[in-house]
C-alpha cells in the first residue's frame, strides 16, 4: 500500500541532518501551517462548487457551468470578487469584536484539522486525547458566532447568534455521546487507534444496531452543529435574512462562509473516521484475498471518498428538508436524541464489556 509515511519520515530525517532540532521544529511547523492553509482554501473552493452542483442536481438545473471547465473555477472567481469587495463595518458595531469574530470561527475550524488522519500515517498531530480535543475545540466556534451576532448591533444578527448558541451547545451533547459509544468499543481516545481498531471491519458494521443508532444521531447532531439545513436556524434566510452574518461583507463574510464548509468537512471526516474506518480500506474479517485487493486503493482515496459521501448526504438534507422551529429543534435534542443516545451508550457499554461485537 502506498503510504505517506515514507515521505514524511524522509523529510524529517533530511531536516534533522541539515539543521539543529529547534530550527527543524520551526520549519516543520511552517510546512504544516502552509499545508493546513492550502487544504483549508482548497476544501473551501471544492466544497462550494460541490454544494452548488449538488443543489443544481436536486433542483433540475445546471448550476455554475461558465467559468473554467464545467464551471470548476466559479468559486475561485467568487472568492476573488469577495476579496476585492469592501469589508464594511457598521457604525454602531463593536469594531474590535466585529472584526475578530470571523477569525475566531476560522481559526477554530483550522485547529480541528490537526488530529484527523487524512491517509495512512498522514496526520498533523496524533494527540492521545484526540476525541476529547475535537469536542473541546469545536465548542469554541460558538463564541465566534455569538461574538459576531452581538457585535453587529443588529437584531437579526443577535437573534441568529442566540439561536446558534442554544443549538450548538445542545447538540454537542448527543454528538459527544454518540462519539463516546465508539470510544467505548475501541477503548482509546486516540484517533489513530480508533482507525487501527477497524482493520477487520468498520464499526458501523461491527457494532451491531447501537453503532447504527449512534451514527444516525451523530449525523443529525453534526448537521445541527454546523448550522446546516434543516437546522440552519442561525441563518434562517426566510426569517432572519442571513442571521448572525447579516452585517458582514467582503472577505469577512467569506471567512464565515468558508468556515461553514470546513466545518462540514470536519464533522464528516470525524464521522468517517469513527464509523467508517477513516483511511482504512474496506476489510471483511478473514477474507485475505479480498482485503488484499482493497489495500491497492490508496488510503487517502478511502478517506476522502467516505468523507465526501457523508458531505453529499448532508447536502442532500439541505436541499430536501424544510427548517425546524427553534422550540422543535431543542425538543428534538433534549427530549429525543439525548435520552436515546444515553441509552444507546449504555447498550454499547454492555456490548463492549460482554465482547459481543465482531
Amino acid at each position, binding site marked *: 500500500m502506498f503510504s505517506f509515511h515514507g515521505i514524511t519520515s524522509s523529510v524529517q530525517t533530511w531536516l534533522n541532518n541539515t539543521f539543529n532540532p529547534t530550527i527543524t521544529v520551526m520549519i516543520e511547523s511552517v510546512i504544516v501551517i502552509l499545508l493546513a492553509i492550502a487544504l483549508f482554501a482548497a476544501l473551501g473552493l471544492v466544497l462550494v462548487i460541490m454544494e452548488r452542483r449538488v443543489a443544481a442536481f436536486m433542483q*433540475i438545473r445546471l448550476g455554475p457551468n461558465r467559468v473554467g471547465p464545467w464551471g470548476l473555477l466559479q468559486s475561485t472567481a467568487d472568492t476573488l470578487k469577495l476579496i476585492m469587495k469592501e469589508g464594511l463595518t457598521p457604525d454602531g458595531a463593536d469594531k474590535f469584536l466585529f472584526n475578530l469574530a470571523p477569525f475566531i470561527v476560522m481559526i477554530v475550524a483550522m485547529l480541528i484539522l490537526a488530529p484527523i488522519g487524512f491517509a495512512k500515517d498522514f496526520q498533523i498531530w496524533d494527540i492521545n486525547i484526540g476525541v476529547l480535543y475535537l469536542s473541546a475545540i469545536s465548542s469554541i466556534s460558538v463564541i465566534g458566532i455569538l461574538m459576531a451576532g452581538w457585535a453587529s448591533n443588529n437584531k437579526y444578527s443577535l437573534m441568529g447568534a442566540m439561536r446558534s448558541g442554544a443549538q450548538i451547545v445542545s447538540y454537542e451533547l448527543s454528538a459527544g455521546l454518540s462519539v463516546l459509544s465508539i470510544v467505548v468499543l475501541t477503548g482509546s481516545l486516540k484517533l489513530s487507534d480508533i482507525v487501527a481498531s477497524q482493520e477487520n471491519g468498520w464499526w458501523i458494521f461491527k457494532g451491531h444496531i447501537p453503532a447504527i443508532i449512534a451514527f444516525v444521531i451523530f449525523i443529525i447532531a453534526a448537521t445541527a452543529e454546523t448550522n446546516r439545513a*434543516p437546522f440552519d436556524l442561525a441563518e434562517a434566510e426566510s426569517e432572519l435574512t442571513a442571521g448572525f452574518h447579516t452585517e458582514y461583507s467582503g472577505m469577512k463574510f467569506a471567512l464565515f462562509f468558508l468556515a461553514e464548509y470546513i466545518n462540514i468537512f470536519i464533522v464528516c471526516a470525524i464521522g468517517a473516521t469513527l464509523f467508517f474506518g477513516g483511511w482504512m480500506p474496506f476489510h471483511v474479517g478473514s477474507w485475505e484475498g479480498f482485503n488484499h485487493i482493497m489495500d491497492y486503493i490508496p488510503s487517502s482515496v478511502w478517506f476522502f471518498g467516505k468523507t465526501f459521501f457523508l458531505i453529499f448526504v448532508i447536502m442532500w438534507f439541505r436541499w430536501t428538508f424544510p*427548517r425546524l422551529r*427553534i422550540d422543535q429543534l431543542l425538543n428534538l435534542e433534549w427530549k429525543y436524541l439525548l435520552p436515546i443516545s444515553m441509552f444507546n451508550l449504555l447498550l454499547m457499554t454492555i456490548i463492549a464489556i460482554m465482547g459481543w461485537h465482531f
Partner: protein
Amino acid sequence: MVEELGITAEGDQVINIGPQHPATHGVLNLVVTLNGETIKKVEPHLGFIHRSIEKMCESLSYRQFIYVTSRMDYLSSHINNHACALCVEKGLQIEVPQRGQVIRVLMDELTRIASHLLWWGAQAMDLGAFTPYFYAFRERETITTIMEETCGARLTMNYMVPGGVMVDLHPSFQQKVKEFITLIKSKIDEYDELVTGNIIFQNRMKGVGYLTAADAVSYGCTGPTARGSGVHCDVRKIYPYEVYGKLHFDEVLETEGDSFARYLVRMKEIKQSISIIDQLIDNIPDGDFQAKTKAVLKLPKGEFYQRVETARGELGVYIVSEGGTTPYRIKFRSPGFSNLSALDHMAKGGKLGDLVATMGTLDLVIPDIDR
C-alpha cells in the same frame, strides 16, 4: 447597547421585517414586537407599492382600464381581468357567447393552478426548503407557455375584454392543456411525497396560525384562508358566474383552521381545478368567442358590482358610472388586504418562524394589497 437595540424594560424588542425581506414576497413592512422569539404584536405597514390603480382607472375608458388591473394581483391577472369584464358586461347587459364563457373559465382555472403552484413553492421556501420552488416553477412554466401561445403574454395576459375574450384559442391549446393535465396529476403526488408528507413540514404547519371560523368572518377573510377555517365562501359556488353553475366541482373545506388546513385547501383546490378543466377541455363549444359590442362603451348611470373567486379569495369590482365613457369611481375589494388583516391575530403568541409560515399560507401578493 441594549438601548440602541430598542429593547424595552419588559424585554420586548421591535423588529422591522421588510420592506426588503425574503419572507414578505414583495414590499410589505411588518413591525413585529417580539419577546425573545415569541411574537406579541404584528403591525403591517402598507403602501410601498401603491400605484393608485383605482384613480388611474377613472381616467381610462371601459376597454382600457381592464389592462391596468392585470398589475394588481399579477399571479391571477386573468381572473382580475375577468372580474372587470364581467362588471362592465353587467352594466351593458351583454351576453357572452358560450365559447367565450368556456374559454374564460378554462383560463381562470389554469391561472388558479399556476398561482397555487407558485404559492406552494414559496410556502416551502418560507419554511427553508428551496427545492420545491424549482419543481413548482417547472410545472408553472408549462402553463405560462400555454398562455403565451394564446394570449401573447406570460404574466399580464390582458386577454379578457368586455364581451368575451380578445382572440380565439391557439390551435394547439386543447392538446397542450391535455398534456399538462396528465403531467400535473402525476406531479401532485410527487409534491405530496416531497413536502406534504414530510414530518418537519407537518410539525411546522400543524397547530400554528389558528383562525376560527368566526374570526375569519369578522376579519373578512375569503378564499382558501377562510375555507381552511370551514367558512363556506367560494364565490364560484355561492354566486356562480359564467359556466361555473353547470360544472361539477367541490368547494374544498377544512375545519381545522391552522396553517396546515389552509395548505391542504390549496393543494386540493389544484385537484378541483384539474377536474374543472377535465370537464371543459373536450367540450369547448363552437361559435363566437366574443359578443358584438359597440366601439365606445358607455355604462348607464348607476352602480355595478361583480365578485369573482381569485386564487387568493374574493375579488370585488365596484363601478360607479355617471353615464360617461370612463368610470366615475372604481373600487376593488382585494382578497389579500382582508386576509392580511388577520395576520396579527393568527401569529400572536407564536414564534418568529411561525410568523413566516403563517404569512406564507395567506398567499399574499403585495401589489394586490396596495393596488
